[in-house]
């Protein structure tokens, strides 16, 4: 066996070679340098970038043996230990300071790529940076902040001056002492040094590796299953089938319709269904064993789309039929509305399924404990529901399960459903050894729920002056093989189908249908992304038909305080839509006073530019009558520091920072004095699902009220002890002032303990009650509003589209952490841009075509436009300091703003996403050759 002699971060190693080993595996598994991340293992995402002899390389496709004689630098090699303290490299520091770190999973790759760039070019401009980072993907898409960080680091390296902080992010207009000002993420430093641990970075003694055997047929009955060859393979420890599930076979978030493993005689409903699971001593053996499992199926006709699924006589995928839910919105009198209208027209739109493509693929680890309990390590958006679902499958009491949530490399709604959690629990229970199940990118793309593909027909009636009088929508949503959150998602698509407008007569009918495609569930925007594309296109079409300005049209119909929504809810506060419209309009006109008229590039007559405009709104919180509850603990420790705890999920969006800032504000201490613990079902109270842009509101409030309650308890205790009025106790500058004396929090801790009081408070916050759809009244407790304008350049010959600028205004109620908010907004625009231009999850006859990242394109830095963010703050009374959600609304108007801009540039109406440049070219060609 040959040797590999290599240097890693200045240290020499001589290692035996291992057949088939890549450099990333050598670094991660043998040297335990887990800062180098694996996102795709197909040289697409760049997360695994390391330097080999100074050049950035994708270590996932670099044979380890080629590294013989080479110098390797990984993310762990950048920071330097100076007097027992780690001194960050200026690049690492700049990524932290500029807010370029969100979920953090891509960051080692971003920094290593940038490090190589700065070695060769100490003063790079924007083009140089984009060229160098072209294939280093960030799905949180903080590309502008990444670019700023690299420029700031380059300057610091050249001048020796400290790294510049961002200067362009204003404080909240409702700022307090801490909240409303920009603060750094508590976990940012570990994310830039590679020390941050994600699930796949964990390893346990005796740990086995799992693989699920997927059916790989879209529809049929499993007739025969033979696992004997797999079981006989040396190194295989367990092969489990449906018969081995001790508890409930089905899981699900709302409806338990999704079998953890399909049994013999049972129905396979999509290619990603599991028919057996394997645990083995190595990943390689697990994969070999999975391939040795023999299965036979009685194939059934495939239901490929929701319209077909609703036809008479087609096969029924579930016992209750193919209809998951018929969702109805009714307001006013449609006949009267359309009869009154001066103009009535309709159009049909189509949107495809899309994938979250979080850079960190799904990973779960089950660890059986000596006391008969089980720990599940997983990055999950709903830890408490994982606990329930795992317990059901095992047939255990829930108290025996502990979910220990890990840092997540992005979620975007795609980490709400059960993926590997039940499988590892079954295997860990069966083998009594820890078991890890890591999806590769291929499996991630095949298996987890997508954004719903839709068909949306909108019929609109308006008066001559532009006032909308009737909007009638028919939606078909493809929820795929299983319900997941399909009903909720399509309800949101339906209730928001007439746009953020005050319309007297509204009807919407949605058919959420089962098909044999991969399931569809939550994805940032939650159905509104699709319906906003339809209705905002209709608004521009209407403006043109009536010959009125499209911004006037939106202003005239915009929801305002006092409006009644389509579901019969009176908006009583916090409707910043008009301000968003006006401020985007003003900003846009600074660039171009006649933004919607095409301008031809003088140097190239094929290139035409124009702006497009779109509005949107999105509920904050679950709504629809669901109790919206989050719990938080705030505890004071002996050293005078605090901890705030909740099982809300941090998936990169910045919730941990929000919780820290809120407790810091309430206790009047520096943010650094507040630690945050999330997502551990033994140690943190239930924060509910991280979905529906709800966590800043609900867990923010839970943290706030827990802190307030603790403060009240301290006040009461001190008032009694020092015999002063409670009003004379002041919390200021990190200490408690009692009638002239100032006590540190460490002293307060002692005082409380001495009096037998626990300086710890649990608060369960329940958001204002809501009503189910159809009952009128408040279906949601808050709405956020967003308006975007996009400038595009279209090549009239080729149909190619480039987005040059995007202006995004979002009414967020109040910006708790403006730096984190900026990252959400930039990322939202980029995800919307991907939805418009690059992303299409293609399924043909139930088979997934886009089964590798190379076939499913998410936007990289090269496609990033100049993004201008305008924060609008119309506070919500019940929100923390007035805040409401922003995670979704900032991504919704992007697609129609872009497609409206394309129409304004070249007169081609896009009614199907993603934009097809060939279709644009053909339409222009036909029109111009017909002249």
């Amino acid at each position, binding site marked *: 066996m*040959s040797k590999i002699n290599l240097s890693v971060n200045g240290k020499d190693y001589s290692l035996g*070679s291992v*057949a*088939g080993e*890549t450099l990333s595996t050598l670094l991660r598994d043998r040297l335990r340098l887990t800062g180098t991340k694996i996102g795709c*293992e*197909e*040289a697409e995402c*760049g997360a695994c*970038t390391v330097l*080999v002899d100074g*050049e*950035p*390389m*994708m270590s996932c*496709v*670099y*044979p380890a*043996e*080629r590294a*013989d004689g080479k110098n390797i630098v990984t993310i762990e090699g950048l920071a330097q230990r100076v007097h027992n303290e780690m001194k960050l490299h200026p690049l690492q520091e700049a990524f932290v300071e500029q807010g370029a770190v969100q979920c953090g999973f891509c960051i080692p790759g971003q920094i290593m*790529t940038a490090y190589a760039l700065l070695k060769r070019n100490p003063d790079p401009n924007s083009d140089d940076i984009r*060229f*160098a*980072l*072209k*294939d*280093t993907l960030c799905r949180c898409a903080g590309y502008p902040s990444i670019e700023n960080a690299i420029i700031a680091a380059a300057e610091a390296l050249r001048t020796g001056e400290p790294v510049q902080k961002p200067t362009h992010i204003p404080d909240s207009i409702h700022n307090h002492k801490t909240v409303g000002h920009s603060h750094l993420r508590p976990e940012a430093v570990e994310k830039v040094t590679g020390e941050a641990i994600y699930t796949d970075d964990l390893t346990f003694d005796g740990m086995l590796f799992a693989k699920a055997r997927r059916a790989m047929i879209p529809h049929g009955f499993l007739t025969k299953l033979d696992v004997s060859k797999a079981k006989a393979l040396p190194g295989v420890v367990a092969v489990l089938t449906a018969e081995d599930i001790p508890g409930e076979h089905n899981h699900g978030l709302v409806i338990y319709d999704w079998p953890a493993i399909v049994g013999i005689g049972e129905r396979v409903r999509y290619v990603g269904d599991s028919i057996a699971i394997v645990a083995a001593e190595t990943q*390689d053996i697990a*994969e*070999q064993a999975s*391939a040795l499992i023999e299965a036979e199926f009685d194939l059934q006709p495939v239901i490929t789309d929701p319209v077909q699924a609703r036809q008479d006589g087609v096969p029924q995928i579930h016992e209750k039929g193919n209809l998951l839910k018929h969702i109805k919105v009714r307001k006013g009198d449609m006949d009267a509305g359309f009869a009154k209208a001066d103009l009535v027209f309709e159009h049909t739109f189509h949107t495809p399924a899309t994938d979250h493509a979080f850079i960190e693929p799904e990973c779960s680890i089950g660890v059986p404990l000596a006391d008969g309990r089980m720990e599940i390590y997983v990055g999950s958006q709903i830890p408490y529901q994982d606990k329930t679902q795992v317990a059901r499958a095992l047939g255990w009491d829930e108290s025996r399960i502990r979910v220990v949530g890990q840092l997540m490399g992005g979620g975007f709604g795609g980490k709400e459903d059960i993926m590997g959690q039940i499988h590892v629990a079954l295997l860990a229970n069966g083998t009594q050894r820890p078991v890890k199940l890591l999806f590769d990118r*291929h499996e991630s793309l095949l298996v987890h729920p997508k954004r719903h593909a839709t068909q949306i027909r909108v019929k609109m009636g308006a008066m001559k002056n532009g006032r909308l009088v009737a909007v009638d929508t028919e939606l078909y949503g493809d929820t795929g093989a299983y319900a997941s959150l399909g009903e909720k998602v399509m309800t949101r698509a339906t209730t928001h189908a007439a746009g953020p407008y005050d319309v007297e007569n509204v009807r919407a009918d949605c058919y959420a249908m089962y098909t044999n495609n991969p399931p569809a569930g939550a994805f940032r925007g939650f159905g509104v992304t699709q319906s906003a594309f339809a209705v905002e296109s209709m608004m521009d079409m209407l403006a043109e038909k009536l010959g009125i300005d499209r911004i006037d049209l939106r202003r005239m119909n915009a929801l305002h305080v006092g409006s009644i929504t389509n579901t019969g809810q009176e908006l009583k506060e916090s409707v910043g839509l008009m301000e968003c419209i006006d401020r985007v309009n003003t900003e846009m006109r600074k660039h171009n006073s006649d933004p919607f008229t095409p301008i031809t590039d003088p140097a190239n007559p*094929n290139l035409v530019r124009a702006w497009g405009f779109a509005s949107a709104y999105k509920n904050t919180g679950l709504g629809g009558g669901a109790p919206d509850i989050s719990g938080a603990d705030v505890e004071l420790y002996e050293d005078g520091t605090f901890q705030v705890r909740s099982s809300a999920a941090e998936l990169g969006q910045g919730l941990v920072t929000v919780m820290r800032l809120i407790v810091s504000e309430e206790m009047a201490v520096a943010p650094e004095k507040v630690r945050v613990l999330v997502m551990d079902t033994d140690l943190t109270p239930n924060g509910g699902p991280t979905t529906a842009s709800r966590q800043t509101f609900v867990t923010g409030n839970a943290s706030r009220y827990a802190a307030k309650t603790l403060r009240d308890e301290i006040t009461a205790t001190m008032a009694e002890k020092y015999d002063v009025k409670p009003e004379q106790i002041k919390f200021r500058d990190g200490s408690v002032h009692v009638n002239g004396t100032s006590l540190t929090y460490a002293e307060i801790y002692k005082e409380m303990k001495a009096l037998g009081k626990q300086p710890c408070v649990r608060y369960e916050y329940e958001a204002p009650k809501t009503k189910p759809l159809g009952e009128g009244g408040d279906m949601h407790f808050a709405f956020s509003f967003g308006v975007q304008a996009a400038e595009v350049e279209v090549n009239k*010959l*080729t149909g*190619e589209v480039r987005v040059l600028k995007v202006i995004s205004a979002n009414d967020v109620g109040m910006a708790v952490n403006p730096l984190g908010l900026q990252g959400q907004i930039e990322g939202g625009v980029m995800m919307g841009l991907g939805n418009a*231009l*690059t*992303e*299409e999850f*293609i399924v043909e006859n139930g088979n997934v*075509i*886009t089964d*590798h990242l*190379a*076939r*499913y*394109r998410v*936007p990289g830095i090269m*496609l990033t436009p100049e993004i201008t963010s305008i924060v609008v703050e119309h506070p919500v009374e019940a929100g923390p300091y007035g805040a409401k959600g922003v995670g979704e609304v900032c991504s919704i108007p992007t697609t129609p703003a872009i497609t409206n801009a394309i129409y304004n540039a070249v007169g081609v109406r896009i009614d199907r996403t*993603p934009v097809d*440049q*060939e279709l644009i*070219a*053909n339409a222009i*060609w036909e029109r111009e050759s017909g002249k």
Partner: protein
Amino acid sequence: MNLWQEYKRPASISEAIQDLTSASGPVMPIAGGTDLLLDLKQGRHAPIHTLIDLTFVPEMSVLELRGDELYIGAAVPVNRVALDPLTGLHAQALVEACNLIAGPQVRNTATLGGNVAHALPAADGTIALTALEAQAEVASPTGTHRMPFTSLFLGPGESAINKNSEIIVGFYLKKTKKGQSSCFKRIMRPQGVALPILNCAVWLERDGDVVKDIHIAVGPGGPIPFRATEAEDVLRGQSFNEEIFTRTLESLLVQAKFRTSARRASADYRKHIVGGLFSDVFEAAWKRAG
């Protein structure tokens, strides 16, 4: 599953050929390996037993002038090809093509040898080398020999190189003389597979307003990298003007075999945009040569 069992690192061409011909089980030479390893992993390539890493062969990692030719080793990473001043001087089209292959990290391992060995009719590097009339140096158990570039290709994905006994060692290009230049451009779509809809490279020699000589390559314009020889004949020796351009394009459209590739581009779309692309490439090369 293990992508390979044995990994060889020969230090010379003869050692590489020896390793290749004596390997037990299926064998593949690997340069960058970015495509091959993924093809193996994703089951698009039959399993192999032995990989022969050519990047340790010095002769294959050289980029230098040899007499009146530029030599580029087949295992030189395309990023080095793109950055080297020699290619900047003698092979602008190749520089432009190499700068567009994948992303920077992949370009640091991917090689022209691999790009060519895959025998795709529209690989960027391949199309540039076609227009530059490269010659390939091929090693076999009986020694090395030169092959005209387009003779390396039999069909889409089908190389004339015998993978069990032959290796592409490097490429020879003629040095650029006064009045000569080249250019490469391509048109992509932002969705789906990472292959161009259409790419085009032009090499030309200009004498005032006269096109003294020209090579036009378009991908994919047929089952193998396509040279628009008939269009070249129309332009060669002519003063460049609108009328001659129209005739050149007509001729190109007649000779090229554009086809529809699912989810990428229809044949009609390719025909519709090829004129604009060729015109852009030609104009850029024409200006450079002036």
